């Protein structure tokens, strides 16, 4: 359970990114499936080139932002529909990620001298149980990111991002270039996603080219599970709800894996589980309305 809470806290970073595009900007951004492994790939590349984890993380964040910028340009400059823009970037990134990594999977091994934030943590605070060190660190990180994002969404640009997703006509009438706002929003979102990728690479100690498959839906699942748990009205509560959503979603998958094998549930069924979860929650309001009409 502690492990899935750790995972939840970690993937909450990605969920916050998905929240920016899907909920604030109203831009269904599928870049995530490419920018998540990109963050991991960039981190692995940096580690193999002998850089410390902080550098790897910074470069991964920049890479994610650039990926988002690319999707944004496809949409705003080339007028390609939102979904297609994201898919195009995602597919381009598959090759680019392979280029960065040089092979389909890389391990980040201490024997090869690769340091991660988690090994540094362990070596600095010797004598504390590693599991709780990780937990505390991830909790601190996500709280820090939450506060930063809350503040960002209350700045002039942040407000413009939220308004753009709500009413583009208004935004234009108020002298804001909605294209520019979308570029900023999608970049920030994918920077977070790539950061999540870099952290996850360190967390599990290896990078695989296919680790991004289904990440958008996992992120979206976290966001909407959060919406079911809490119905926040202010950004402060909504970001908490996204983080809680990520944790609960990870716990649900852990439960499905641990106890599901009695009914023949296999790890590769997880994507089906996630897909069905999202479908059920999204369809729920429709069924509820239908039921009400019958009564």
């Amino acid at each position, binding site marked *: 359970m502690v492990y899935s809470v750790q995972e939840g806290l970690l993937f909450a970073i990605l969920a916050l990114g998905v929240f920016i595009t899907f909920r604030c900007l109203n831009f269904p951004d599928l870049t995530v499936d490419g920018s998540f492994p990109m963050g991991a790939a960039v981190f692995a590349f940096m580690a193999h080139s002998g850089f410390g984890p902080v550098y790897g993380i910074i470069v991964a964040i920049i890479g994610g932002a650039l990926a988002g910028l690319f999707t944004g340009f496809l949409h705003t400059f080339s007028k390609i529909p939102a979904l297609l823009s994201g898919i195009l970037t995602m597919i381009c990134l598959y090759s680019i990620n392979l280029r960065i990594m040089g092979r389909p999977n890389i391990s980040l091994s201490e024997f090869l001298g690769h340091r991660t934030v988690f090994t540094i943590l362990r070596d600095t605070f010797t004598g504390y149980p590693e599991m709780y060190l990780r937990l505390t660190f991830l909790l601190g990180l996500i709280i820090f990111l939450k506060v930063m994002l809350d503040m*960002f969404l209350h*700045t*002039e640009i942040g407000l413009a991002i939220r308004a753009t997703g*709500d009413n583009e006509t*208004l935004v*234009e*009438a*108020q002298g*804001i270039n909605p294209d520019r706002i979308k570029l900023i929003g999608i970049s920030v979102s994918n920077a977070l996603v790539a950061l999540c990728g870099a952290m996850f690479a360190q967390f599990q100690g290896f990078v695989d080219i296919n680790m991004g498959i289904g990440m958008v839906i996992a992120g979206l699942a976290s966001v909407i599970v959060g919406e079911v748990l809490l119905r926040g009205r202010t950004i402060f509560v909504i970001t908490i709800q996204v983080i809680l959503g990520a944790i609960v979603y990870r716990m649900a998958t852990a439960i499905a894996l641990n106890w599901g094998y009695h009914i023949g549930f296999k790890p590769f069924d997880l994507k089906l589980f996630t897909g069905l979860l999202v479908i059920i929650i999204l369809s729920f309001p429709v069924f509820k309305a239908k039921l009400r009409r019958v009564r």
Partner: protein
Amino acid sequence: MLRLQNINKYFARNTPDERRALKNLTFTVEDGDFITIVGSNGAGKTTLLNIVSGSYLPDTGRVILAGKDVTQLPAYRRAKYMGRVFQNTFQGTASSLTLEENFAIAFRKGKPRGLRLAINDPMRQKFREKLTEVGLGLEERLRDRVGLLSGGQRQAVALLMATIGDPKLLLLDEHTANLDPKTAKKILELSETLIREEQLTALMITHDLEDALNFGNRTLMMDEGEIVLDISGEERKRLTIAELLDRFSERRHKKFATDRVLLSSDR
């Protein structure tokens, strides 16, 4: 102040569905004009406002605003010169944002936006004062989401947002059409007050011929993408609705007719 020259606007151009929404339209708006625009559905009234605001670019012709050719400028780059309120009460505000957040967005119109916090206490104070003047009890609801307000309240907020930041031109696109008569009257009066106090030049589309003659100093009547009548001064003061309709039929050899216009002119 504003000059439109030979504006042509087509929709679905070069297809069988081609429609010419504005035909060689030319007219000048003087500083301080408060122009009311009437016309049946499809006359081109809203298209005209969209050309002025930059939401549509004309196929031919030029738009000159305050001595500057703005024909090719996108809407967001003209925004600092103008405010706009729409018929749809959801269009003038962002409903998922709070009242004060909406105001804060309007507050920075025409200025660069950065990473400053969007709202501070002096700003809040100013918003509260503005809302108190309107007298709809909105000053206590700064932190409520705009989506929770009534249509009339939203329209009042949209009006205030449109006039924040010293615009030169106010564009009102049937902004009271979706409101009940009492609220519509209130919003219309508020519009007039704001136009007078802020010394704005205004273009107001309305389907109510009585309002069209009672408000402002000049009335345009449009039909099939053209301005058919342009009445101002003493002539306009004496004009009755019946005479206005007669003059329209004289020009166009048909009756000026939409259900809405007929209903409202029966009063």
